[in-house]
């Protein structure tokens, strides 16, 4: 996005300001980074519930008799196995098998899909998708007519259920249904980016503010708080989830990022197939790992790993974990150093902090 493009506001902007949010520019949007405090919001999502404005995400509809075949070629996961009413995690890959973006694919009907992509990449993704041969397909950008609220945490279902026209707890994880929430027509999706149970609600922008307020009112007795991008980032990190621009980008492949389960090499040709097939046969050189800092300090994106005095990789995300109360992060290490228990160090502004490779995710909710 060029510097002269004014940043946009979501339909919920006034609610954030009224709630005392600190607003930052993110991917061309004026978004709440935190309200009362990142730690408090993070802990509310782990123990009660948080409400997130994620209207900045991009949505693209792909319909027509050629839609399935088109998405089979465009993305590495197996769209043929995706049932109507289900979504799956997938990616847009270059012919070299690296990430243009990661995304969710929703199967709305036999020949109707919705792709949900990162705000920062939305314009580029759409241009890429349209540039690919798409016979018997219609591609429509739905971003401007779609608002998205995420309600996440152990109390999320209890808050939404009394307001919903269908029982959302009957949805499987990554299942969705059309219905109403507080009278607002919604695509109700049991998905999220926090490592907790919860829902994402796709609604018309004009109804978003009313729904936000109804959810906040209904959630008060359950401990629902508005949660910002800051908490969203620490929550996804604890859950070991990749973020574009950090763990995944145009230099990394899904196999390196530990996203092997998204790559269905047997389904037939797709963009990046050849490179990924070869990479799987020959083995990858580096792998995404989780690590914790065993000294005092916090590693951040771009800090370098060292082993025996030699630079061996870089940190992609790092934070202090509000749940585990220690500094942790993710980054790429040579496969030989990627096993849990391996001791490395991280150069944090000239200080060598000891770190240990640990399994991902850092946090897994009790079920």
């Amino acid at each position, binding site marked *: 996005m060029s510097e002269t493009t004014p940043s946009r506001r979501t339909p919920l902007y006034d609610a954030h300001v009224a709630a005392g949010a600190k607003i930052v520019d993110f991917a061309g949007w004026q978004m709440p980074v935190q309200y009362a405090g990142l730690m408090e919001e993070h802990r509310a999502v782990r123990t009660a519930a948080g409400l997130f404005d994620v209207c900045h995400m991009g949505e693209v509809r792909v319909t027509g008799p050629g839609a399935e075949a088109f998405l089979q070629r465009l993305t590495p996961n197996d769209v043929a196995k995706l049932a109507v009413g289900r979504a799956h995690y997938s990616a847009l890959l270059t012919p070299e098998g690296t990430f243009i973006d990661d995304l969710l694919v929703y199967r709305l009907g036999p020949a109707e899909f919705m792709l949900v992509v990162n705000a920062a990449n939305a314009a580029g993704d759409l241009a890429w998708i349209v540039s690919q041969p798409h016979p018997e397909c219609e591609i429509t950008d739905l971003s401007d007519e779609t608002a998205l609220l995420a309600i996440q945490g152990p109390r999320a279902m209890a808050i939404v259920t009394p307001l919903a026209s269908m029982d959302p707890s009957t949805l499987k994880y990554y299942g969705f249904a059309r219905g109403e929430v507080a009278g607002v027509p919604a695509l109700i999706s049991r998905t999220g980016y926090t490592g907790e149970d919860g829902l994402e609600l796709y609604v018309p922008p004009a109804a978003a503010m009313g729904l936000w307020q109804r959810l906040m009112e209904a959630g008060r007795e359950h401990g629902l708080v508005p949660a910002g991008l*800051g908490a969203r980032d620490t929550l996804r990190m604890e859950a070991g989830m990749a973020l574009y621009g950090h763990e995944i980008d145009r230099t990394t492949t899904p196999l390196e990022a530990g996203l092997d389960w998204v790559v269905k090499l047997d389904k037939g040709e797709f963009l990046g197939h050849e490179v990924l097939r070869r990479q799987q046969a020959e083995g990858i050189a580096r792998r995404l790992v989780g690590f914790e800092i065993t000294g005092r300090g*916090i590693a951040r994106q771009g800090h370098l790993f060292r082993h025996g005095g030699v630079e061996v990789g870089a940190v992609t995300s790092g934070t202090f974990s509000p749940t585990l109360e220690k*500094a942790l992060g993710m980054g790429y290490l040579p496969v030989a150093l990627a096993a849990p228990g391996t001791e490395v160090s991280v150069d944090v502004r000239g200080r060598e902090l000891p770190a240990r490779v640990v399994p991902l995710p850092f946090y897994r909710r009790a079920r």
Partner: protein
Amino acid sequence: MYPSEYRYTRDHEWVKVEDDVCVVGVTDFAQQELGEVVFVELPEPGQVFDAHDEIGTIESVKAVAEVFTPVAGEIVEVNEKLQDDPELVNDDPHGDGWLVKVKFSSASDLDDLMDAEAYEEYVAKGKE
């Protein structure tokens, strides 16, 4: 909000002069901008610095801020409580959340600092 007997820097630190020693901390504005502080890294007593040298870091969950010494001199004491209770920086930035005490070598370093009124204007201007 900002104690009138303190002096303030453009880096959002405060300085309280006690004889030939400066107590240094970060301002309430700075701690608000940082968010919840989780680590404070400070120098060792006995280390000597020039004015405006970086002497440590304060890390919150999302951000890191450098600590500078506003005056040249020797570190005579650091706030050991911050090792275990870094959140003191948030809870009491102008008091128990102090960072270091510096024995200053030249009182003229203090001349550049703002008084409380000027600092409040400086903060208000930055917010516009």
